[in-house]
């Protein structure tokens, strides 16, 4: 492991009851890179993503073995607080899920939870985060409007603003554009490029085009295993594995 490694998984396994959903995953995720996880549905890519901030803890039947290191610390160690971990490793979901509160309250939710009460501070954070998510110009005049009143693409960007408001280091994105139209998708992809400057991003995507457009590194998952990982350019032009090639050329999936 070197300086540029942000997340490192070693022999990561996950069982849902009897089902072995993730098998021996060893993956290195680079700092300030966009890493895309691709593969057919049910291949375990979203499950893997949720291991990185311990969201799978919420699922009773899920059992994780192996290690996930963030900055060299095993996040599955006994003395780790998943709540603090999630402040460091934020997450954007497939379906945008703004709280049924105002835009301002949505973004201020995280900072408030973390104990920031000063109104002025909150306003600064909200503005900075909304700018960061390229949403500020569109909503700056009606921050009191309900988050649910925004369009789908705006809602997803609101969720991104909400996530970066707690100042995380890693952003996990679970098919963030799957429910959006092409224009909104393009905006999100552009945003991902900008966010890369300040965050390490791991994105699960269904669309190979999206993976090739936004990511530096691509990992291909199939049936709970990670088949191949490499620079995006290489994966899409000359994959080492037959299964990767079949998937990329559209023979299944």
């Amino acid at each position, binding site marked *: 492991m070197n300086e540029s490694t942000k997340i490192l998984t070693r022999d990561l396994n996950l069982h849902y009851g009897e089902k072995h959903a993730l098998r021996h995953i060893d993956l290195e995720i680079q700092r300030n890179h966009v890493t895309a996880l691709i593969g057919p549905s049910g291949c375990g890519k979203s499950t893997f993503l949720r291991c990185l901030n311990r969201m799978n803890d919420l699922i009773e039947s899920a059992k994780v073995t192996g290690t996930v290191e*963030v900055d060299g*610390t095993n*996040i599955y160690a006994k*003395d*780790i*607080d998943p*709540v*603090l*971990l999630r402040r*460091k490793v934020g997450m954007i979901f497939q379906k945008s899920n703004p709280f049924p509160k105002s835009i301002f309250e949505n973004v201020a939710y995280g900072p408030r939870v973390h104990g920031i009460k000063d109104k002025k501070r909150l306003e600064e954070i909200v503005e900075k985060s909304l700018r960061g998510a390229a949403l500020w110009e569109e909503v700056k005049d009606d921050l009191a409007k309900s988050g649910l009143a925004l369009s789908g693409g705006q809602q997803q960007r609101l969720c991104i603003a909400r996530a970066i408001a707690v100042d995380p280091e890693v952003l996990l994105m679970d098919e963030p554009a799957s429910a959006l139209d092409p224009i909104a998708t393009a905006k999100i992809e552009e945003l991902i490029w900008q966010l890369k400057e300040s965050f390490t991003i791991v994105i699960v995507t269904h669309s190979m085009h999206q993976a090739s457009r936004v990511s530096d590194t691509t990992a291909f998952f199939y049936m709970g295993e990670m088949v191949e990982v490499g620079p995006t350019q290489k994966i899409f032009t000359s994959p080492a594995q037959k299964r990767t090639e079949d998937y990329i050329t559209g023979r299944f999936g």
Partner: protein
Amino acid sequence: MKKRIRLGEFLIEKGIATVAFGSLGAIVLIFLFVFREAVPIFTMDARALSGGHESISSSGTTDSAKATGESESYGDPVGESESYGDPEPVGAAESYGEPEIVGAAESYGDSTAADSSAKDTSIATSGGMLGKPPPPSESTVSEEGGSILSQILSGNWQPVGDHPKFGILPLLAGSLKVALIAILIAAPVGIFAALFTSTFAPRWAKEAMKPIIEIMAGFPSVVIGFFALTILASLVQTVFGLDYRLNALVGGIAMSMAVIPLIYTISEDALSAVPKHFTEGSLALGAPLWETNLRVVLPAAIPGIFAGVLLGLGRAIGETMIVLMATGNAALLSPSFVEPVRTVSASIGAEMAEVVFGDPHYVMLFVLGSILFCISFALNAVAEIFIRQRLMAKFGGAS
């Protein structure tokens, strides 16, 4: 990212868990405290129960008389209930002091007079509470030596008087009679109505009928009891030409009004939960709608409907106000369905306010309560564990 101790949160979460376990605790507490008060029955001398101890019964009477004098709340009705001997013949029929229908006639009349609860009117114009004659009846003497069990399982419920008797058979019989009538009416009506609104009825009819039937579930039982007492009783008496205005039949019919919505709602749920592809398969084979409904939908929903009937039975046995107001409250052990009955629940409701803490009568009422608890617990457990799980297995949790 080291674990941080959040003491406040930890305590609150423990508090939440504690409160939630409280509902589990409540069941245990109810069990403990209702049974605790009933336990003396096992330690009590059989002679005490059979009225061998003069002191208990006489002190009981004086105490309740005293209570009558002191408490403005309960005093009036008891004092005045003597005067409420209905002038009309109908009222007389409500009384349970009718000599010809009572087995142990003399002692029965006696207990009626002494029964300070006297919820039911026309007690002996002759005496009321204080002027009662105390004739020790033969049956009492003969029973004195018997075991507690044979005491309890005897056919006389005369809780107050010089020789109180606590035979619960007439009460059990009363509860069973009323519940039986109620279920015999409510089960077919409730199930058929559910079958109609969930399968045959056009949409508009369903949307109009379902809420109206469910309104019935919102009738307070005292309202049903009042309706039975003032309207239904006279109607039933006229239609069937009965001797007694208030009787098991009236109680049963009134009770069915409380049970129909219960059976209806649960059956309707069960019927609606039958997957569409069941019916489509049958209809596709050319079976008419009614045949599909009877041969496919109804059998598939049987476990749920059965659970509904069991819960309805539990309700009918445990419900108090309706029987208290509509059955005439005479503890008779007779095979007739048109004579007055006194149910287990009504006995508790009518007598508990008047008993002296800790005396055999008090203990016996808690024994009755324990019996009700056990019956409802058993019915619930069967409906819950057995039926619901079968439903789940059948429809993959669709219920």
